[in-house]
């Protein structure tokens, strides 16, 4: 043979999965599925394509759908960017009158926009659960328990789960009467994880030294249960909520939790508890989730809800890293 093989490219951020990898991914998803089923979470499938006008009910911030096509009638369709919003839509249309807790799990590809040359996935495989109709703290504790059981079942050893509250910083700003025009800038600095910028902005807001110090120090508090001791006054509600959740956790789950008053998630629909999964072998979170108590209301069926999604490919990398005893942070 001479001549080079023909090149037939696929879009950046997508990839083919060959049998060896597929077998390993399948072992992971099988382990997760068994745990989800055991906890009563039934698997669902929803279409990868949905109406943009329907998914647009939710605030997905920068993780929203970006891939759009027109159908035969000129309607705009989007490729889903997560499974939580499609399942909220499913619950609102298929279970509009069911009050009691609904438990669903899914294994699905989701589609996101990527930064050029950044090796981000355009298509990612998510495994997760949604628990609809179960309020905090019990629903949150159940979701965290399923999360840890599922990760244990895959054989991941050294993971930790960060637990925070999406409403905490907003509540702090309310109580300290931060002017509306200042709030966006402070939230942006926090979302950018830029404590230098946050300090500079706080210095310009004209707060007392104590108030500014609180807004700067609270998002940097993370660690064991001691983080919840001596609750800073204005954040007491959110911290009380985190303590209630932690009191409901079994010891094996509680041992995994890092309390994190500065945890920020990029998705906009979270209302209360939020969580994120870390493993020392990987420089980025393996998954995350939280409470979205207002999302179902935007589909006309108000219900408290909580869920999480794991990035199956990252989980696979972390498992491989632990197996080899190497990885980004495992030094």
């Amino acid at each position, binding site marked *: 043979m001479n001549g080079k093989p023909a090149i037939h490219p696929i879009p950046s951020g997508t990839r083919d999965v060959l049998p060896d990898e597929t077998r390993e991914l399948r072992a992971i998803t099988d382990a997760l599925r068994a745990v989800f089923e055991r906890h009563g979470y039934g698997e669902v499938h929803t279409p990868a394509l949905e109406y943009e006008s329907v998914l647009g009910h939710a605030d997905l911030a*920068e993780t929203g759908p*970006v891939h759009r096509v027109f159908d035969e009638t000129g309607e705009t369709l989007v490729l889903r960017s997560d499974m939580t919003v499609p399942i909220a839509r499913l619950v609102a249309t298929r279970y509009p009158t069911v009050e009691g807790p609904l438990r669903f799990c899914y294994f699905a590809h989701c589609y996101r*926009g*990527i*930064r*050029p040359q*950044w090796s*981000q996935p355009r298509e990612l495989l998510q495994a997760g659960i949604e628990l609809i109709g179960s309020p905090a703290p019990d629903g949150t504790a159940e979701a965290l328990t399923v999360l840890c059981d599922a990760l244990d079942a895959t054989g991941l050893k050294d993971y*930790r789960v*960060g637990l925070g509250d999406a409403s905490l910083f907003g509540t702090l700003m309310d109580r300290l009467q931060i002017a509306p025009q200042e709030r966006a800038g402070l939230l*942006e600095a926090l*979302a*950018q*994880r*830029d*404590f*230098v*910028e946050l*300090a*500079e902005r*706080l*210095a310009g807001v004209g707060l007392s*030294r104590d108030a*500014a*110090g609180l*807004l*700067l120090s609270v998002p*940097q508090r*993370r*660690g064991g249960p001691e983080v919840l001791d001596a609750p800073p006054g204005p954040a007491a509600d959110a911290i009380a909520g985190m303590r209630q959740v932690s009191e409901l956790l079994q010891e094996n789950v509680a041992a995994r939790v*890092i309390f*994190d008053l500065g945890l920020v998630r*990029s998705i906009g629909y979270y209302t209360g508890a939020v969580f*994120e999964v*870390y*493993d*020392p072998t*990987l*420089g*980025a*979170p393996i998954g995350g989730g939280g409470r979205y108590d207002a999302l179902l209301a935007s589909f006309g069926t108000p219900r408290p809800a909580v869920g999480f999604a794991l990035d199956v490919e990252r989980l696979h990398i972390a498992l491989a890293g632990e197996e080899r005893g190497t*990885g*980004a*942070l495992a*030094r």
Partner: protein
Amino acid sequence: MTAGALDGLTIAVPRGALFESTVDLLARLGLDTAELRSNDRKLLFEDIGVITMRPSDVPTYVEAGAADLGITGKDVLLERPGAGAREHGRRQIYELLDLSYGRCTMVFATVDRVNAQGEDPAAEALRRLGVMRVATKYPRIAARHLEETGRQGEIVEVKGSVELAPITGLAEAIVDLTATGTTLRENGLVVRERIVECTARLIANPVAYKLKAAAIDQLLERLRAGAPAAASTADG
């Protein structure tokens, strides 16, 4: 032995203009920096937890978790994708501390000449041609600056000696980093606008920031105490 001065953390250290001050800082933290100072070919100093690299690579290593912490210029961070509020995909690293050294200014400069209407070459180009050409090593910062000041521009990316561009007619203006302004003056250029002050920053990997919280917070404490100039940010 000073192993353990960083409590097991790995830090990405920039070679180049920030190197001396950074090594001084590490020495004040109790690291044995003798080999770091004497051996400029070695890249990995495993026993003291230091990796050296060019400043623009520091966020890459830290974001991936190949280093827990890193020190680099604010200019490098601003030029990274995801630094702008409206850009898709936020950056994931934490920016923890302004280390105050390596102070430079990102400036917009043109040749030191104005026309009969008092316009510099960039302003004249914008009025008559509808667009100004701006040469820079910082295309994102330059584009953002033009956008924020409501001007149309064409960014010409160059890799070195930006001062050459306006003198030779490649561009009407430049956006570049300057410490003293000497190079600009020597090339007949004058600062028209100051865009942003840049100093060295301490950054952290988001997972390391959570999993190694105690070690990182302790280091921050020592940095704030030992580097008085950094206290201005800690004050809030």
